[in-house]
């Protein structure tokens, strides 16, 4: 009995390893932002189903994690594409260059909106970006505006008398999330970098008070509840906790419009139109980057990139817009398609131009 089982196991193991010894078929490898992941993997599936190429492997590592893997080297075991919900940073570009990833082409596939939403049963709410900042920052200006105090606000009408007497409770993404980065950028940093009460602390002691240059610390006294990378969880919490607000990607708002509704931010609610023309303040561009040295070595790379940038996927009414992507304006799409055709290299100068 023992011998039989051992023999069978050994045989299985040997045949298994022998079978696969020389088999490492090149599959496209994509890493990066969890926000771009749904669109990227959707395109990957379409490529796999309509062409002879193997379906690319798409891993959601977060924008920063993706850059780290992408820039690790030029070898074929490194990713061929990386997705990002923010632009590549100068430091990341330099790291790429240093590690031999010289030629990179940058693409923008569309926009994403960050929705601030609540239960559909709750009366709609109008918030300015400043209201939101004051509700979630760890330290806020005192009443007379001369110094910073630990956030004292627990009801919205304490921040702004025109808001309802409703408890402040915000479910949002954790620090590892790109959505959190974007929220901190567009709500907190955007305002605090121009507010003297924060920046004067930085100017007083640039080393010690570095955090106050662009203050983006979120309060940790239970009012802001980090709720994990899974946006569905936040949606479910909102349905039960009708006083609360939730922060997540626009596609989740669209898919759950039967139970949750968006809040007005600066008088605008998120719709595909307001996100695309940037009148909704919480919108951002979604990027992907191509490792040019792999083209021709990994089959299907150009086909994937072309498909992802095609009208059928990311044009007005394209398949990716059905699952929550906001299309770029037509001229922009043409611009990036031309760049894809020429495989325009990213240069250090690109970072000087305002994007």
């Amino acid at each position, binding site marked *: *009995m*023992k011998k039989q089982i051992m023999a069978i*196991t050994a045989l*299985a*193991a040997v045949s*298994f*390893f022998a*079978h*696969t010894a020389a*088999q*490492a*078929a090149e*599959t496209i*490898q994509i890493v990066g932002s969890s926000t771009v*992941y*749904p669109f990227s*993997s*959707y395109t*990957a*599936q*379409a490529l*796999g*189903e*309509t062409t002879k190429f*193997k*379906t690319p*492997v*798409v*891993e*959601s*590592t977060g924008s920063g994690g993706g850059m780290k*893997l992408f820039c690790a080297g030029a070898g074929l*075991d490194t990713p061929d594409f990386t997705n990002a919900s923010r632009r590549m940073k100068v430091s990341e570009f330099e790291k790429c260059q240093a590690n031999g990833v010289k030629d990179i082409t940058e693409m923008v596939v569309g926009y994403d909106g960050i929705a601030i939403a609540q239960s559909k049963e709750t009366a709609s709410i109008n918030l300015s970006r400043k209201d939101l900042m004051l509700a979630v920052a760890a330290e806020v200006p005192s009443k007379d505006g001369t110094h910073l105090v630990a956030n004292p606000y627990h009801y919205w009408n304490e921040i702004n008398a025109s808001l309802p007497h409703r408890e402040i409770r915000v479910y949002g993404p954790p620090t590892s999330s790109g959505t959190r980065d974007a929220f901190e950028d567009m709500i907190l940093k955007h305002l605090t970098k121009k507010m003297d009460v924060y920046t004067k602390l930085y100017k007083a002691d640039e080393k010690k008070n570095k955090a106050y240059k662009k203050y983006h610390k979120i309060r940790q006294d239970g009012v802001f509840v980090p709720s994990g*990378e*899974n*946006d*569905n969880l936040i949606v479910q919490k909102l349905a039960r906790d009708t006083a609360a607000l939730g922060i997540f*990607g626009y*596609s*989740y708002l669209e*898919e*759950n419009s*039967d*139970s949750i509704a968006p809040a007005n931010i600066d008088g605008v609610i998120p719709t595909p139109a307001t996100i695309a023309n940037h009148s909704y303040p919480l919108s951002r561009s979604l990027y992907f980057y191509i490792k040019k040295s792999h083209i021709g070595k990994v089959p299907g790379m150009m086909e994937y990139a072309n498909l992802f940038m095609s009208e059928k996927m990311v044009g007005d009414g394209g*398949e990716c817009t059905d*699952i*929550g992507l906001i299309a770029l304006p037509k001229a922009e799409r043409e611009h990036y398609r031309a760049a894809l055709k020429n495989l325009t290299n990213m240069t250090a100068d690109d970072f000087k131009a305002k994007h």
Partner: protein
Amino acid sequence: MNSITTQQKRLRSRHRSDRRFKYYGMIAIAFALAFLTFFFVDIISKALPAFQQAYVQVSVNYSPSIVKNYNTAIDKNDRKLVSKTFLRTLPRKLKAHPELLNTTQIEWALANHRVDQYLKGHDGHGLKRKDQKYVDELFKEKKIELNFNKGFFTNGDSKLAESAGILAAAIGSIFLLLITMAVAVPIGVMTAIYLEEFAPDNRFTQAIEVNINNLAAIPSILYGLLGLAIFINVMGVPRSSALAGGLTLSLMTLPIIIIATRAALRSIPDNIRDAAYALGASNLQTVWHHVLPLAFPGILTGSIIGLAQAMGETAPLLIVGMMAYIPEAPTGILDATTVLPAQIYTWSSESMRAFEERTAAGIVVLLTVLLLLNAFAVWLRNRSQKTW
């Protein structure tokens, strides 16, 4: 007289506390059972709809133009009901069956997730009013049907809920399990045999023993980091591959197997070894012919439980890149692959509502496999148990 009543009182009070103690135990069991029932009822009731899937009868027009634009194959009204997966595969089908060219076929096509969710009466199906009516009509004419969801067991992952299946992840899990078994079981059993039967009892072996016991209690995510550092960064095993995942899991399973094997070996009475030695058997013969066969059921049970634990593990696999969109089943150990628990996690974070029931169905499949593995372990133990 007096002393007797005190004694009786004391006896009664002791009996009472006896009974109380028993009730505490029963309450604890009732709690555990209630949680278990709640969990099973919740998961299974959520999962059941996933085993059915809507199909719609459409006429497919195999004109030459569908190679360029597959959308033209089906009438505009029906196109809104049919899954994109069905449409996308039409050009290939035409290529494989050229005789279909310029014909019109009546076919049962996979319906999309909105139709499917609408028919199952779930909220948030997102089907437009106009289309709802159309679906109702077709349903009455029996041109839309809910049938057994075969695709769930024959497809890999998909971004479209209606065609998402568990097969690729299941095969991935089997690959990982085989690799883990091939690596962890021989090394673990040999380590245990050496420590138990041959090693002298000194400081060094005691230190090893303490370390092994500690390793079994380490959070599994640390094994993921170890796997990333050793197998992927140093040894150059491809990221997300079955080999990387399997080796990482075998690191995690090793201490469990070693501990279980040592316990099994220790439970063999010494007089069996003494008897072998008395007949002039060498160390190898004693272990190989007498101790191991008797300890075998214990070793096997320990290994199976270790492997079952490895099968349900996700944290270390996240680090080596297996939590990804990988719809195709692996054909070799260097291919990228995903596993059952990772697949469940990926589905749970999808925004499409139809994935909710598939997540639950995935959990049911995983639980079934684990129960089978554990039942197999119990059966093996009972079958070959010996008493001395």
